[in-house]
């Protein structure tokens, strides 16, 4: 669907994006992650044809970005960062204008507008000026703008910034819904969001791709330390640590005393590739402690992100 080879962008002497390659299949939801200034927005802007790459090739379907830019723009729905819409226009006028530019007319236009109003929750704000909308509402109008032509590729630059938690969940659902048939590329710096929404994650740092993998693979990569969280009732901290530390490869740390409900929280760090969980369970079963929580924590994306993008 999308093929990018050696994509590079220089702003004068500063290299914002440095020879990146990736390919995106149809129906994938890709999360572009990276610290501020990593080159996420620049990459997206080059994909949408807003910026001209200094070097490199972008092919979308069978079109080349240099030669068939209008054909490519027809395939792509794009929401730029912070939705810079015309502040003086009414929401309805704006969406109507975009629909016309997207070559929708008559009934098809009316139907599409109705559909988008429902999908993006724009009821009651159609007659307002865009300038007086809150950031979240503006973001929704921008989303409606991007989805106007039911595009095959949807590119969203920080789609959930400025939204409240409920709206974030809604937008995520919308993106997931669209992602079933369409290709979605979104950039974000909220890791949990990428984790929850994206099939695949590309991490960019200083203009280069430092990781590119399916979300679940990425979470399992890295070193082989497991972390297990335990909560026990009726247990004494020192006792618990002593018992659990006898298991091979486990270091246990506990909160100094049980909390007000009499629950003791423990964190186990395990080295080695063997699964220590059966051994832990057997050890606890032999005592009179009550096991209330037993969770293996997969290495979260945050740690991986920090490892890959920390400044040396």
């Amino acid at each position, binding site marked *: 669907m999308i093929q990018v080879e050696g994509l590079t962008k220089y702003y004068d002497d500063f290299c914002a994006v440095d020879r990146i390659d990736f390919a995106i299949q149809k129906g994938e939801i890709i999360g572009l992650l990276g610290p501020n200034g990593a080159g996420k927005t620049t990459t997206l802007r080059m994909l949408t044809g807003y910026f001209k790459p200094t070097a490199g090739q972008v092919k979308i379907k069978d079109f080349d970005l240099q030669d068939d830019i*209008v054909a490519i723009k027809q395939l792509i729905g*794009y929401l*730029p960062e912070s939705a810079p*819409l015309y*502040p*003086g226009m009414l929401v309805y006028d704006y969406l109507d204008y975009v629909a*016309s*530019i997207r*070559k929708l007319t008559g009934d098809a236009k009316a139907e599409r507008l109705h559909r988008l109003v429902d999908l993006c929750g724009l009821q009651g704000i159609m007659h307002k000026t865009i300038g007086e909308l809150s950031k979240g509402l503006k973001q929704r109008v921008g989303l409606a703008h991007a989805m106007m032509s039911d595009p095959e590729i949807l590119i969203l630059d920080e789609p959930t910034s400025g939204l409240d938690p409920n709206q974030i969940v809604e937008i995520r659902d919308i993106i997931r819904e669209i992602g079933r048939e369409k290709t979605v590329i979104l950039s974000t710096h909220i890791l949990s969001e990428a984790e929850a929404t994206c099939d695949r994650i590309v991490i960019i740092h200083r203009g280069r791709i430092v990781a590119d993998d399916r979300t679940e693979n990425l979470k399992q990569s890295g070193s082989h330390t497991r972390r297990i969280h335990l909560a026990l009732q009726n247990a004494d901290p020192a006792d618990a640590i002593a018992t659990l530390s006898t298991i091979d490869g486990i270091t246990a740390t506990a909160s100094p005393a049980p909390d007000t409900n009499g629950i003791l929280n423990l964190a186990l760090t395990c080295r080695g590739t063997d699964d220590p969980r059966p051994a832990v369970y057997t050890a606890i079963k032999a005592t009179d402690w009550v096991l209330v929580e037993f969770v293996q924590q997969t290495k979260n994306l945050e740690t991986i992100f920090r490892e890959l993008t920390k400044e040396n």
Partner: protein
Amino acid sequence: MHQVSHIMGKELKDFFISPIAYIVISVFLLVTGWLFFSTFFVFNQADMRNFFNLLPMTFAFVVPAITMRLFAEELNTGSYEILLTLPVTFREIIVGKFLAGVVFVSAILVPTLVYPVFIAMMGELDWGPVIGGYAGAVMLGAAFTAIGLFASALTRNQIIAFIMGAVICFALTTMDRMLFFFPTPILNVVNYLGASSHFQNVAKGIIDSRDILYFLSLVFLGLYAAHLAMQEKK
């Protein structure tokens, strides 16, 4: 072509929504009306020559004030990114904005149509030069709109866009009155480049291909320069 009309429609709507447009119309009508009628009764002649004599000078300031927002505002709010990622070409954007500007400049001339009607009631008005004058005004307006559009594409600051546009238009307007500054060999060229004399020719009712060609080339140059400015921004 459809895309051009959509862009033009949107820009026109914006013109009539924004308060700046009405301020510019009021200032234009006040200045031209006052300058024209303050001497009108002194000369005691039923013609509009004085009105059309002053028009290039007022247009040199009014038209850039109208066109200054066309690109600068989009660059400033960032909506330029949205515009450029919609399936339209640079050419369609430029022509759409240009046509919207020309329509608006023509629209501000409409209220002044009461002058000839009013004068015709008081005396014998020769309608030929009046029609020529308005035709010339639209051509001059189109040329200045193209220049203003170019100035607007250069910067995200509307005030800078206005000043640059006004300076170019003012220079073109006054050029043929500054001939004594130029060396003899290039006098003819400079004289040809001045906008006033071409406008006055049309306003006298003389339709000469040279004058029309002059305005057309100004429009083309302005739009082409705007195209280059847009390309540079990528």
